């Protein structure tokens, strides 16, 4: 009940006009509705004389109108834009900021993370469009907006771009941007100091809550519960919530179902690794911003060499730039080749999560199922394959593999290993499949590009 619809607000004005024509003034049209908090409707007027008139002559009539229109026992309060009188200000929701000693008053945003600086491409178009839509009308389009993707693909950039946009276009809105870790720390600190009330006040009275890397809520039972209530309060009062994570909601380990379903409520969108053209566009933008003149063939070369994420692209620009500066000659293809010589030759250790991706993709089962407890054949078999492949291509121990795949015993892994090994000998088709999966794993991509 912390907001009014436009119809309710115009209903209030109409009610006053109809029932209390004697107090109505022509400038009532310009009154603006600010918010409904703690049972008080905040109405903003243009100047102090107006405010005095409203408070002294019209408070009762507006209260009556607000009660009739909302069906709730509310009261009203009149404030002036840029109020300097000091006695009738909008309640400042950040009164309790000093509660958290290490929290800066201003939220820290990277000034470069704006929409202008974001390079869109097929891999991130949906996430970008959703973020723009949300920043244009927070709380009304996609709520919550959940962006997930691997590291360095621009989640934080989009999150902060929304904050920048809202801060510059709607300065009255109360924006809170923070990492999940800060949320947990604040919560623990509040519990520790018996200041839960302040904590709740702080978090439940924002207009835009943006939390980065929400997957860190995993395993935090109490924080999850608190976040659940914060989420509900904001959601019910149509405040915008934006979250990011490195995987979709249902794959965040040990996240309560009620939170998973809430995260899926609005829009869940994924950012994929950028394609070649996008990588080139990113490189051009980054080079231009740093006033570097990179020829097109160098850009193409770097983009081909480095196919992971924007951070590594930036690192490559640095390497090429520094190298050519040392040589004292402009950047060209040969110096770039020399500078980046070792980048792609390093073979990266294979991550066990990649194997999971590849196997889940191939068998078309959910990753969470493979890591889960179900022992249905359609799931147990892919799990055994995944264990087998992990044993083959990594140096993880049986215990480590078992615990990654749903906390299983090392003997289970051993059994899977023997079973798949035997089947492989007997079944040519399986053997081919395993080879195919292995090559995808060493290429580092869950989808077969060939």
């Amino acid at each position: 009940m912390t907001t009014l619809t436009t119809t309710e607000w115009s209903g209030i004005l109409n009610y006053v006009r109809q029932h209390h024509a004697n107090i109505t003034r022509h400038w009532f049209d310009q009154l603006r509705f600010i918010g409904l908090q703690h049972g008080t409707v905040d109405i903003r007027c243009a100047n102090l004389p107006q405010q005095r008139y409203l408070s002294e002559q019209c408070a009762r009539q507006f209260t009556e109108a607000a009660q009739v229109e909302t069906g709730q026992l509310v009261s009203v309060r009149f404030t002036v834009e840029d109020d300097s009188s000091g006695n009738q200000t909008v309640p400042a929701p950040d009164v309790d900021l000093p509660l958290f000693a290490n929290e800066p008053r201003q939220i820290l945003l990277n000034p470069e993370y704006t929409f202008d600086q974001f390079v869109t491409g097929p891999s991130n178009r949906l996430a970008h469009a959703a973020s723009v839509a949300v920043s244009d009308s927070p709380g009304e389009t996609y709520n919550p907006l959940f962006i997930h993707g691997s590291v360095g693909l621009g989640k934080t950039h989009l999150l902060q771009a929304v904050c920048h946009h809202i801060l510059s276009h709607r300065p009255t809105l109360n924006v809170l941007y923070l990492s999940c870790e800060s949320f947990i720390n604040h919560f623990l600190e509040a519990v520790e100091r018996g200041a839960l009330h302040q904590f709740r006040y702080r978090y439940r009275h924002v207009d835009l809550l943006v939390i980065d890397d929400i997957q860190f809520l995993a395993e935090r039972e109490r924080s999850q519960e608190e976040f659940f209530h914060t989420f509900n309060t904001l959601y019910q009062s149509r405040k915008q919530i934006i979250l990011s994570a490195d995987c979709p909601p249902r794959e965040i380990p040990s996240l309560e179902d009620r939170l998973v379903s809430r995260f899926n409520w609005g829009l869940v969108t994924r950012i994929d690794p950028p394609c070649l053209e996008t990588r080139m566009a990113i490189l051009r933008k980054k080079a231009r911003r740093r006033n570097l003149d990179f020829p097109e063939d160098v850009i193409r070369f770097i983009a081909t060499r480095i196919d992971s994420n924007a951070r590594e692209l930036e690192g490559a620009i640095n390497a090429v730039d520094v190298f050519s500066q040392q040589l004292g000659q402009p950047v060209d293809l040969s110096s770039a080749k020399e500078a980046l010589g070792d980048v792609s030759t390093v073979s990266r250790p294979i991550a066990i999560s990649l194997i999971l991706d590849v196997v889940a993709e191939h068998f078309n089962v959910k990753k969470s199922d493979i890591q889960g407890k179900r022992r249905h054949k359609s799931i147990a078999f892919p799990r055994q394959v995944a264990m087998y492949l992990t044993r083959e291509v990594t140096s993880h121990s049986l215990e480590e593999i078992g615990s990654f795949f749903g906390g299983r015993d090392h003997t289970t892994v051993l059994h899977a290993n023997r079973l798949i090994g035997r089947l492989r000998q007997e079944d040519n088709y399986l053997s081919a499949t395993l080879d195919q999966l292995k090559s995808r794993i060493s290429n580092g991509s869950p989808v077969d590009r060939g």
Partner: protein
Amino acid sequence: MKVNVVTSALLEGLNLAASAAASRTPKPVLQGVLITAQKDQLLLMATDLEIGIRHQIRQAEVLSTGQVLVPVAKLLQIIRECADETIVLELVKNALHITGSDSHFQMFTGDAKDFPAIPEFEGQGDFELTAELLRSIIDRTLFAAAKESTRYAIDGLLWDRKGQLLRVVATDGRRLAVATCPLNRAAGPDAKVIIPSKAMSLFQRVITDPDVTFQVKFLSNQVLLHATHTTVSSVLVEGHFPPYEDVIPQDCNRHMHANIAQFASGVRRAALLTSDESKAIRLSFTDQEVTMTGRSPEQGEGSVRVAVRYDGEPLEIGFNPQFLLDVMKVLGGDEVYWELKEANRPGIFREGENYLYVVMPVNLS
């Protein structure tokens, strides 16, 4: 530490401590009760860091002094089941030994040094309230406070003290209860503070003896409530309480008087056939009676007529029956007096100068 203590007194103290201690918390020390044996008394302390309690037990023979921290819920269970008149608590090494005539329990103890400080009551209170007055204030307001903590600033009750007058206000956005009481002696500046509902329930629980007078003291961010053996402390809720005076309508032109028992019975019966989602009964006021109608789309409908004295134009208005029954329970006397205006405007129940209850109607269409 070794103490011989009267079981019933210990049980009473532990009950209070258990309602102040935290039920779920990442800090186990907050689920404990700190028992201190002093020269001639036993002191129990518990807190969840928002509210705290100190309770002295005089009915104890202290054989040796000391201090021990144990989980309050378990100790309470042990003592509650104990049939002996007195019981012996003794700290031996790291265990608290609880010895009765036929039983012996050993509980592992926590580190008393980790236990947070709980404020003590010192000097005089800002004002005092008799047990009877305090109980009546709480009974008449607490039920109208918001139940969930979502709209947090009013998850608490406003204590508004102006000079010799105290007003306690509770609202959940659909109803508002105001209890007023004159104070005999009041010191300190006027104050407007919000006390959490949980603290108010604890206040209610410490009223065991009707002849006790409670001292109330407001500190910068805390309230202390003190009677002979017990001090309750609570942090105050920060935030803005709605300007409650504006909420109370002044222009009611319909008035109803009725017998409280008959009226309440009518509401209860009319509510029998209402559905859960549309919890509302329709009240039609005419000259000498009100017809209360309840309807449930799945089950049927019913109506009850109650004789009233009604002064004003006929009126059809809907209310949540529970909101009406809640106030019937706390109104004194035989008669209920109700002021109404329109079908979309709140109604007011009044009892003399000292109590009023504003309730928002429900839209019937």
